[in-house]
């Protein structure tokens, strides 16, 4: 029986009504949610961008706030996907028992989890795209390749939603999520090139940064927003996809074990 939790995901379009359900809830509570999603990265962007920008005239050949813009787009996407797939999914699974209700209909757990994944990525898309819009409007970016960041935002949202769902599957309570943020998300944010270029880091640390998914998101987003074509795009994309696919599978196996035994 143990191994059957690891059987491949059985996905169907039944995830769509699950997504629609989350969308309907969100529509009712949209304004505070949007403001909350945007406020945090905006404060970082303008606070750090102008504050540190005054001390550091240029980073990697561009004004600091321009350098920071790509990092903030990725950070905002990651954060939004993580919060949704942790706190909100956990509420639906464990507190409100929304998943139990859905499972009584002709919908499988695999569909529910896919619905959660796509929904968290949808919210993350909104969060990432909003920052992208702001930095573009304010003129912190080259606009030539800026639209190419949009599909990247989709992928980054899916990747971090999948990772978040693993933690949700294992969480006994909301308190558990603090570990994920303090031990994974926050160090990763500092080490993956959001705030400063990673090539300054010592070689040992570079090894660590290279296996972090956020690093690869930024390696694509930053050149695009500086009007350049990123190098080794395929590798960066593959790393993000691998984290996403493996993450979803692991999350599904643990969720099956949690709810279906």
């Amino acid at each position: 029986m143990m191994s059957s939790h690891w059987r491949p995901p059985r996905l169907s379009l039944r995830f769509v009504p699950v997504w629609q359900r989350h969308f309907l809830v969100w529509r009712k509570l949209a304004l505070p949610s949007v403001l909350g999603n945007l406020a945090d990265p905006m404060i970082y962007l303008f606070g750090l961008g102008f504050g540190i920008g005054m001390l550091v005239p240029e980073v990697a050949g561009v004004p600091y706030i321009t350098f920071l813009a790509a990092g903030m787009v990725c950070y905002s996407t990651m954060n939004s996907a993580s919060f949704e797939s942790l706190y909100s999914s956990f509420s639906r699974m464990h507190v409100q028992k929304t998943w139990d209700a859905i499972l009584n209909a002709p919908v499988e757990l695999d569909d529910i989890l896919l619905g959660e994944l796509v929904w968290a990525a949808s919210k993350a898309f909104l969060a990432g795209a909003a920052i992208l819009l702001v930095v573009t409007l304010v003129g912190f970016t080259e606009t030539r390749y800026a639209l190419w960041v949009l599909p990247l935002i989709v992928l980054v949202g899916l990747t971090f939603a999948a990772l978040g769902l693993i933690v949700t599957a294992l969480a006994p309570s909301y308190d558990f999520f603090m570990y994920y943020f303090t031990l994974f998300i926050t160090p990763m944010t500092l080490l993956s090139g959001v705030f400063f270029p990673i090539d300054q880091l010592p070689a040992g640390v570079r090894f660590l940064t290279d296996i972090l998914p956020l690093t690869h998101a930024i390696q694509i987003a930053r050149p695009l927003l500086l009007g350049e074509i990123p190098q080794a795009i395929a590798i960066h994309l593959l790393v993000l996809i691998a984290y996403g696919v493996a993450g979803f599978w692991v999350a599904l196996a643990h969720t099956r074990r949690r709810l279906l035994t």
Partner: protein
Amino acid sequence: MNDGALGTAALPAGHSAADDGRAPLAIRALTKHYGDTQVVAGVDIELRRGECFTLLGPNGAGKTTILRCALGLTTASSGEITLAGLPVPERAREARMRVGIVPQLDNLDPDFTCAENLLVYGRYFGFHDVDIAARIPELLAFAGLEGKRNERIQTLSGGMKRRLTLARALVNRPELLVLDEPTTGLDPQARHLIWDRLKRLIRDGTTVLLTTHFMDEAERLSDRLAILDAGRILTEGSPRQLIAAHVEPQVVEVYGDWTGEGVRGGGAEAWAVGHADAFSRRFEISGETAFCYVSDAAPLIAHLETQPGLRYLHRPANLEDVFLRLTGRELRD
């Protein structure tokens, strides 16, 4: 309103074609264990079309686990399950298209109104919004919630939530309705209203499978019931059959402070030890009360009238007597 539309009579044409003669649910040799703990120890159940079948058992008897296995929500350790003609768990999702489920705990969506709850639930079945919307007034009327269409769930009483959960389970016009302890936690008025709705559904041809630990509920609703303990079915039959088969027809409960034969403060127990045997086919002492099972209560009652301090209650035997006889009187915490 048109009650008939909520029963199987109005099932979409596609459903009735496959219905010939097959049981809405058939369970054979079902077992389920968690590690070394056996929760279901070999259970067979076959529902007949249009009947109300009840699983009656103390807490922890395995009722909910049997339902979860039957619906494909957890995998059985062994056994065969056919739900709506389809093998479970392999085709459980398809089978649930024809089944309505009322869970033990309310899991309505607190962010939605009554109507939105029904709409969103209908979408899980793949129904179109227009079709669900057309059905909502009928479902709300059935639940007695016509005026609450746009009320949020938080404003509803416990009984209203239960009725909405019942209405939600009917959104797909199920041929089988499964209810897990449908009236636990409700006040008497709310329970009677739920029973009334269930009777209507049964009358209109819906097959109903329910679990309960309330004897009156089982006795009132079921055509057949199975008494369950420790994962096994102890006996199965109609309420009347079970009473006739397992207990004497009359019960006299004797209690009070017996002061006969010079005994002071002896209680009913002291009386029963000396006298109950002479008048009853069988008696049990539980706490302060002696339960005397008799076919003719008249001689016992005549005797009790002469005993100072004793009080008694004479009643026909019921399902609770069967249940306690078969499962014992010890607490099941």
